[in-house]
Each structure stands twice: as C-alpha cells, then as structure tokens.
C-alpha cells in the first residue's frame, strides 16, 4: 500500500522563498509572463499604437503622448515601490494588440477618456498632472470604483480595457508574485479561486 511522499526537505521549501530585488521593477520578462498567463504570445518589434491624427493639438499631439499617459496611469495603479519600465508596457500592450487588433482602439479611447477627466478636474492632460492630482482624478471619477464594462460608458470601458488589464499584468507577473510571496504568479490566473464566502 503506497502513500504519498509527504515531507519535502526543508531546504527545498526554503529555496522557494526568493529575496525581493531592490527596487522591484516590472520588465519585459514580466510582460511576457503576464501575456502567456493570458494565453497570448509576446511579439518582437514594435507596432504603432498611435497613428498620426491631425485633429490633435497641444500636448496631446506629442508622438509619445499615448504611451506616456499609460505609463503615468500604470505608475499610479501600481505600488509606489515598483519601477515601471517602458519595455514592460510596450511588450504587454503590443502583445495584446497582436492578439486582438481591436485593442488598439480601446487603448486610444482609454487615453482620451483619461485626458478628458484630467482636463475636467485640473485643466491639463493626465500625464502632465502631478501624482496627487492623478490619484485624485481616479478617485473622483468612477475609475476603479465604478464598474468594468466593455460595452458601457467611457469610464467603464477604460476600467475594463485599460485599468483592469494593467492590474492583471502586474499581479500575474513574476514581479507581482514576488511582492506577494507567490512563486508562480502565472500558474493559475485565469480561473477564479474558490472562495466559499464569495458571491459567485
């Protein structure tokens, strides 16, 4: 009669606890893992998210406006200790676009929505606000606090397509796992944990 080998060696268990790098940085590697956790592959090279738009004026006309806006949003959404590198964002977003071309439009719409909210509250595009102002924009709109709905209002679509995706990308990545002591953050991200006290 066989039973399971129960006791893992102490050293095996301890080896799994990893030292947290200082400071934690989300890199291209994190983006690749998060993409594959979502069943997508990363792509080599760059795709243009932002096409030329003659209607844009002022700061929004800057060629890197879109990516910079997303980077500042990401920095606010993520823990303050986490350093958000460009290659993390570009790898993740381009990977998403390669998987689903319509995601480009969702990103552009999201950036526009953020800028509208920012101008409403503080008279300037989102990426030009300071961190406190950016956090206030999120809190005073229904960003995060409102629903995420791909077919809803502009803010609900921002939540669904941009905010939730960016949070998923962090917490399904190795760096996100390290922040929580989860050695295999991408191991089981797409199904729901079994929460008997939940509403599902």
């Amino acid at each position, binding site marked *: 009669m066989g039973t399971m080998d129960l006791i893992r060696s102490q050293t095996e268990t301890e080896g799994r606890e990893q030292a947290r790098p200082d400071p934690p940085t989300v890199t291209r590697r994190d983006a690749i893992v998060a993409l594959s956790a979502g069943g997508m592959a990363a792509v080599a090279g760059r795709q243009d998210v932002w096409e030329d738009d003659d209607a844009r004026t002022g700061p929004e006309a800057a060629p890197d406006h879109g990516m910079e806006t997303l980077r500042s949003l990401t920095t*606010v959404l993520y823990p303050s200790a986490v350093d958000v590198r460009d290659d993390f964002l570009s790898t993740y977003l381009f990977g998403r676009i390669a998987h689903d071309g319509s995601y480009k439009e969702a990103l552009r719409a999201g950036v526009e929505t953020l800028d509208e909210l920012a101008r409403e509250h503080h008279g300037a595009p989102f990426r030009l606000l300071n961190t406190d102002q950016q956090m206030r924009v999120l809190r005073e709109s229904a960003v995060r606090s409102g629903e995420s709905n791909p077919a809803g209002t502009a803010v609900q679509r921002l939540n669904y397509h941009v905010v939730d995706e960016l949070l998923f990308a962090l917490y399904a990545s190795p760096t996100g796992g390290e*922040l929580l002591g989860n050695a295999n953050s991408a191991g089981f991200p797409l199904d729901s944990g079994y929460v008997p006290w939940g509403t599902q």
Partner: protein
Amino acid sequence: MSRTQSSDGDRTPIEDTEVCVIGAGPAGAILAYSLAERGHDVVVLEAGKRFEEKHRIDRLKRQHRSDHGVADTWEMGGDRDAYTTTGEHAWPVNKRRIKGVGGTTLRWGGVTPRLREKDFEMGSRYGVGRDWPISYADLQPYYARAEQEIGVAGDDNAPFQPPREVSYPMDPLPPSDTDQLFAQAGAELGIQVHSLPMAINSRAYSRTQDDGTDQHRYPAGSKYTAEVHVDKATAQGATLIDQAPVQRLEHGPDGEAITAAIYRTPVGDSHRQTADVFVVAAGTYETPRLLLLSESAQYPNGLANSSGTVGRYLLGHPPASVFGTLPDETTHQGEHGPQMSAGSYQFYENESAEQGSINIMFCNVAGPLPTQAALEGDRFGDELLQTVDDQYGTTVGMKLCTEMLPRADNRITLDSSKTDDAGNPVPSVQFEPGDFARRGQEKGIQVGTDLIKELGGTVRHAEGTMTTGHDQLPPRLKGGFHPLGGARMGTDPAESVVDETLQTHDLDNLYISGGSVFVTPGAANPALTIMALSLKAADHIHEALSFRTTRIDQ
C-alpha cells in the same frame, strides 16, 4: 465521406448515415470516435457551438471578474437554456452545464476516479438503493480504455482504489504544498491522503493519433476535453454539425425504430437527419427532455418511456466544503495548475452503508487569487497591494462529494408554462437529496474540520447543501455539479429505460449514453464512468451494425 465542421454555415443532413449521435460532450464524443474509427458513418449533432480559441481566452478573462460568471463565459442561459425548478434544492443548472462542442468538459476539474465495486450493487450488498445490471468487472476493461484514451495521471499504489489490471497511463501529479500539509495532519489523525486520478498531463501525452496534427492548446493546461474525441472522430470521417439542437426524434409508423432526428439551425431551418442507429448523449437535463418532447401516439408518456421512468431517479453528489486559514503558513494557493491533486477516499466505503460514501478533494485554489483580489474593489497603488496581500496566501480547504440514494420523485419533467427559444416546454427539475447524503456530509465535514484544526488553523466555513439552507448558499456552493440519472439502466423493461448495452428497451435502434443511465451515483466524479459506458455502448452498436442486413427505409 466526411465534413469536419459546419463553420462554413452548411448544416444540412448527411446521407447514408449509420449512427447519429446527439451531443458532443464526454459521452457522445468518445462514442462517435469509437464507431468512426471502425469505419462507421457517424454524424454528431450538437446544440451548442464550437468555442474557438481566440474567443476562449476573452471568455476566460471575463470570467475572472467577479461580476461575470461561468454562465456568461460559456453563453449559457437565456431562452435557449431556460428551465424551472421545484423543491428545496434548486440547482443553478446553467452555471453547471455547458452546451457546446466538448460539453461540460469545457469547464470541468478533470478528476477521473472509477466507481467502486460496491457502487454497482448497493441493493444486494446493503439493502439500499438498487443494483446496476452490470458489475464493476463488466466495466473494468472499458475503464482502462477510457483512461488510456483521455490520458489519466494517477498513482497505481494509492489506497482505497477498486481493482485495476493496468497501470495509469501517466504518473500522478505532484502533490501541492497544501496536499502535503493535509498529509501531515492526516498522518497524525490516521487519515490517509493520496493522489487523485486526473485527466491532466503529468508528462507529454499525445491524445491524438498523429503528433503533427495536434492543434490543441488549452489555456487552463493540458487537461482533457471532449473536443479531443470530436476531432479524432471527424479525422476518421465523422461529421460534426454544431448549433443544431435536436427538437424531437421521429419513429416509423409501427413505433419500433427511430427514423430521424429533427434539428433546427441558427437561421431557423428545420432538417431531418436519418440514420440506422441513434444515440442520445445530450446530458442529464436534455436527454430525458428530448424523450419526453418526442411523445407520440405509440409513446404517449414520452419516447422509450413504457416504464414511466424517463426523467425519474435523478441523482447527484450533494456537495460540502470545509475551508480555513492558517496563521503562520503561506499556502501557495493558485501556484499550481490543477485545481486539485490529492484527496482521501478513506471514507468512501463503509462496513454497513449507514451514510453516503464520501469523496474528499483538497483544493489548490482556496481563497482569492492575486489577480482576482486585485481586480476587486476600488483601491490602487500601495493600498491595493496591501489589500491583495491580506487576502492572498493563507487559505486551505477541500470540497467533498457525497452519495445519495435514488428516489422516484427526484425527476425531470416538462414544464409547459415556460418555453425555450424554439417554443418547446422547458425542463423542470425536482430534487431532494435525502438523509443518507446528509449523514455523509456531516461525517465528511467532521473529517475536514479535524484536519484543519490539526494544522492549527481556524475553520472559516464548514457547510454542505444538507447542513444549512440550500437557498442561502451562494451559487458556487449549491449542488448540481454531477447530475445523473433520468434514463436508468436495468434488466426489467418495466422499471428502467435502457438495458446493459445502453439500448432502450422500447426501440432497438435507440441508445442512450451519459450520466442519465446511472442507477446509483456512488460518490466518484462521474466523467470517467460516463466515458467507459460510452465505449461499451459503442462496442454493442458496432456489433449490431455488423449483423444488420437491411437499412431502414427512409
């Protein structure tokens, strides 16, 4: 002649069909393949659609959000899937079943134990329930074939298993951290913890005949779905027609043979698929419903229902769960692919069957996962990290299935007060598990509580569907995960619907496969038994077709 898909929109019937299989889930798919590979002309009619992988990923991402659920993910619900319930245990039917290519294996956990010897002979052994017309020994070779076909990882040396004559195709999945914790606690309490047999790869395993054509990537890991055998069947010449819900079965003027399956297409066309033999493998809810909807002058109580037992003796595995938190332990939930990998069958067999058998499965995904916790609520930045960190990492728990006894008044009937999207009366489910199951739940909950306390944990939840008000439970904790019965096997045509070959007593060319034919449920997850029964039925159908000298005039 074969067509692999109706993705081009062509859903017209196939001429010269020998076998028409209704349902492309775990029962229908492997049966279709088993016949197609022997050269038979097979058509599979599936009510739902083929879920393409691109959309699969989007669907899974939607499911991850707390405001979406499994029903949304697989497009279950609405008029097509309408149903009603009576009685105290209203199952959330459309959060359990899936209509589509692959059926409910599209979302199953992949646990594949066999039924035990005693499950087939509850009547003669213990004087409760009823015997099956076949024994474990009769099904044993088919269990082995099914394990090989779908790829099961298991421990040949695990305790409390029924006899097996062949090794599992793959070594067992490695134990998770919480499996080991439970094993340690079990050792202190005299409770054996062991691997569960799982239809999940523990090594590279080819489920197709030709490695080069294996196109399958499953986002949730290398877990079997019935799509594998649908594709193997079509590779052998079978035709799959999806989005083709069968509305009724027609028989000839003398009532002795089925002549056609009438199905409907998305654009509202109606077609007649003829065949020599018909197999209804449409799942526990739709199988008796189709028979009842096919009533006629010769079959006023429903097709193949001379016994009056179509829809009756509905069965399940009334579930319970025990969860807790450990103060000083990181439990690494969600770090390993499989939702479960170990459990205990120590409480499956009892000396005298005073309570239902108990099937304990330890969870590897207890509590919220980081991404799930992160998407909830309204926090961001450092506050969000703190919230996620607080919620994640200390939960342990288990789910358990218990055995119930068959009752004639647990049944599926037609409810004419409500109709589906085609105007057909919907199924109505009446279900009450009974005290035999309740005592099993109480015992299982005690075992789980003892284990968590032995680990120094705090029990947060210890309830079953019979130990608390069923209606008060959230949907995930209600019953209905393993619906069985409704067209049971038996030797007596006055008390059963199909015989030991799964041929209906009433009509020679009508067979039924799936959970519907179970006589008693045991406590083992039923999918492997369903597949074994399908392989057995396929052998019988093959034999019958081989001796056939004339075709039914169409």
